């Protein structure tokens, strides 16, 4: 009796859940007028709701604009490639000057010469993509961001004049968080930074120093903490018990601590964080990241997508970039808050490493570099050897015993 009641209960549970969830699936068949793929931290802190902004501007209702957020720019590209025969997205936001090579090779974008480009400097456009497959919307340098309360010029006197070599010799790598370059775009930027500085003898690329980038990673790999995304790196960086007060981030990151409307300390007091670059050959070296917005090849809503891109590059949106996306806006007509200008490093003031690696070299070697990087990081041959020895020993002991 009891059992039959139990069974009955289960059947009711099954059917009712089935019934309701079928509804849940059916409802989703909304006709979207615009679908946007982006990474999850875009304009997110403290937050500017660009979907609402565009809805107000264009008159398309918010429910008909679908925003899909993925972990990182790299996932945007892979998602779009997986869908390239039947595209879902209309606009991709956040592919940068490195990922563009994959995006172009996979044919997921088509060129669009937006009228808004007239306010974007030639140099930025040329550095990202002269063919306009991808249009720059913001830029900034990759930099090593550190928490001044935990590491500063009294604990590391050379902190304002470091080289990548110094990171090893001063054991700063034990305090450093980097993002996985195979998954994250700032992580990839930093990998290219090391390649541009040290060079790659296997393709006769001199770089700045004429050494081998692999050596730097080999030396540091045991000490680094590697995370899958910028957000995960920030979690490690900000929890003190992790003891990792340096992370690969952006030259604009100090502005985040100073100018943030909620917890920014303001320009009157000493800033809580700062960044350092690498100072090889008396230069201030850093990798420049330019983020772009692009129109999907075969976009279901091409006209709306173009309109959205025009709007995204206009001053109305661009003025939100500095204090929400914490980057320099690409549109040069945009007014930038003085707080941001004072604290964020301007890419024009540093020596950009990108010019050392020409686009064709980058696109030819990118995949190779990534997998060779993995090879430097993944090194547990010693453990494996121990285990193999143990198991071989155990098996042979067993055999020997049976023979007796």
């Amino acid at each position, binding site marked *: 009796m009891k*059992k039959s009641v*139990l*069974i009955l209960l*289960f059947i009711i549970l*099954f*059917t009712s*859940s*089935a019934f*309701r*969830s*079928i509804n*849940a*699936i059916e409802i*989703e068949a909304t006709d979207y007028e615009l679908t946007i793929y982006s990474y*999850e931290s875009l304009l997110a802190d403290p937050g500017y709701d660009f979907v609402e902004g565009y809805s107000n501007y264009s008159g398309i209702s918010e429910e008909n604009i679908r*925003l*899909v*957020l993925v*972990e990182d720019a*790299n*996932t945007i590209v*892979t998602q779009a*490639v*997986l869908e390239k*025969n*039947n595209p*879902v997205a209309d606009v991709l936001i956040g592919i940068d000057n490195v990922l563009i090579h994959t995006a172009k090779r*996979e044919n997921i974008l088509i060129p669009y010469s937006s009228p808004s480009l007239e306010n974007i400097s030639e140099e930025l456009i040329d550095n990202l993509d002269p063919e306009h497959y991808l249009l720059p919307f913001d830029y900034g340098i990759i930099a090593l961001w550190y928490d001044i309360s935990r590491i500063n010029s009294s604990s590391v006197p050379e902190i304002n004049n470091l080289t990548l070599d110094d990171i090893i010799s001063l054991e700063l790598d034990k305090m450093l968080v980097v993002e*996985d370059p*195979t*998954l994250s775009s700032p992580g990839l930027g930093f990998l290219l930074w090391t390649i541009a500085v040290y060079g790659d003898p296997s393709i006769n690329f001199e770089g700045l120093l004429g050494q081998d980038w692999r050596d730097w990673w080999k030396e540091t790999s045991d000490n680094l*903490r*590697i*995370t*899958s*995304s910028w*957000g*995960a790196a920030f*979690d*490690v960086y900000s*929890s*003190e*018990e*992790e*003891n990792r007060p340096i992370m690969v981030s952006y030259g604009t990151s100090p502005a985040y601590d100073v100018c943030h409307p909620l917890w920014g300390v303001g320009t009157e007091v000493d800033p809580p964080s700062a960044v350092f670059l690498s100072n090889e050959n008396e230069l201030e070296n850093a990798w420049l990241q330019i983020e772009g917005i692009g129109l999907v090849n075969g976009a279901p809503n091409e006209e709306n997508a173009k309109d959205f891109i025009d709007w995204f590059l206009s001053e109305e949106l661009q003025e939100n970039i500095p204090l929400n996306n914490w980057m320099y806006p690409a549109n040069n007509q945009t007014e930038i808050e003085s707080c941001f200008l004072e604290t964020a490093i301007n890419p024009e003031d540093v020596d950009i490493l990108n010019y050392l690696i020409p686009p064709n070299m980058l696109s030819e070697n990118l*995949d190779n570099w*990534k*997998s060779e990087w*993995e*090879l430097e*990081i*993944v*090194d*547990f*041959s010693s*453990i*494996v050897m121990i*285990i*193999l020895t143990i*198991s071989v020993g155990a098996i042979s002991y067993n055999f020997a015993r049976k023979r007796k």
Partner: protein
Amino acid sequence: MFSANLKKRARVDSGLNKSIIVLVILAFGSFLILFFYAPLSKIFQFALTEGNQLTFSYFIETITNPLNISFLLFTFAQAFLSMIICLILGIPAGYFFAKYDFKGKNLILNLMTIPFVLPAIVVLLGFIVVYGESGWINSIWTGLTGINSPIIEIFGTFEGILIAHVFYNLSVIIRMTIPAWKSVDIEQINVAKSLGASNWFILRKVIFPQIINYLVSAALLVFVYTFNSFAIVLYLGEVRFQTLEVRIYKLMKSSLDFNGGATLALIQLILNTIIIVLYLFFESRTRQMAEGKDGIFGNEKISFSKKNWRKNISMLLFITFIFTLMIFTFSPIIAIVIESFQPYADGISPFWGYQQLFSTEYMPLLSNSPLRLLLNTLLFATLTTILTLILSIFLVFVLRNRYQSLKKYRRSLTENFVSYIIILPMATSSITLAIGMFLLFNNTTIYLEYVWVLIVLTHVLISIPFASRSILSAYNRIDIEMLNVASTLGASRFRIFAKIEFPYIFRGIVVGGIFAFAISLGEFAASNFLVRGEYGTLAIGISKLIKTQTLQLPATMASILVLITIICFLVIQKFGDIELKV
């Protein structure tokens, strides 16, 4: 005349029988061919052909790639070590549970099995809450010693992965070694003792040969599970440690190297098949050994005697050991529930996570509201249960339809064939199933619009071995003679099924069905690979939120899964014994 009538009827009946069998085989076969073998052949195609030509270049490239080699070695190494640690902890625990009888023994045993039936992603979350850098253990450690560096690091470390795997699989060893200890023949031990054998000698020469098959098959099972571990290694391993499963996933999803991913999946499939065949071999030997022995060993009361203080101390140590294991297995589960009521920031209500279920705040990140994810999860699980049960009953029917000719029974060609084609789905990892589906269907409407169908079908394929196993073990208890008698007396095939077979296998069906439900509920690897748009499940939702600092919402989702799993598990306990074996 009467007998002629009967004969005629029997002939009609056997004709009907044959057609039923043919129909069932057709249904089952076409399902397997369409959703298992066709996707699998697509993997072969990506791995072994270029254009239309057979090529081994991908194969050679994959197998000589140093990264793949080191990940392959790592996969073996971690599975081997996890297995050894599970054995070291599990064998004594199994001995304890087999030998002693005490109040609440079954309850403890059942509770200790719960981690195994929990979704990997939930286990992972519980692990992060307890052992993570700012988790319980490390907070206590910092509080006690004032040292501001964690005592346990689980992210990006070998030991983190091992601890999680041991936690997850320990109960397999404990549960599977209990019958081993129970099958030990006490008489032999007594004889050996009376002949003056030392304890060590008895253990080695008398007990060991009797339990070795059980141990090997249990160990191989743990090896299979850890060899194909996905969620735990994906999140704890960072880049440094990847199982083949994770590597295949990353090749397919991050590098878009379909050929490389398919080739590696093929290699993994071969290795898995070898392990599974080995496992089936040892497992069938345990069944032979178990025959005719029952309950010789065991059911002693736990007792302390005043005279024998050495025995008391060892008993005390033993109990402490079991107690530690219990804390080890329960704490992450309890931690999840507590965490779901733990406000992630000041001024947040403890029920924030549960309120969030009904909001759409996390919509862009989760591609759907948490409530919808829950409903999707339940719907997929229900569909999976129904389909799995139908197919498993078909399968058992085909395998065991031999009542009419028992006397001259030989393993028929179909049975041989069927058992071979069944081994293959068992040996296929979730990721392999998913990429097969993906490669075959990725340009069809079914993938683009109704990807949930593929997700459900993958869940069905994953659950069939478990469900058919429990139905089969129920079926094996039927006295075949009874079926023969019924048939001689003129009952039709359908009537025999309805009146004799079905009541017998009913328990098996319930247990198998709930097992399928539980598997689908928490399945992560394949769903995560296939998912598109709004068809996410709770497990996928948890994985998306697991890296954020606020663990309250994912812990809430996980608590729901824990609750449903425990209910399922309790129902299984009501109906019969849980089969951890594949």
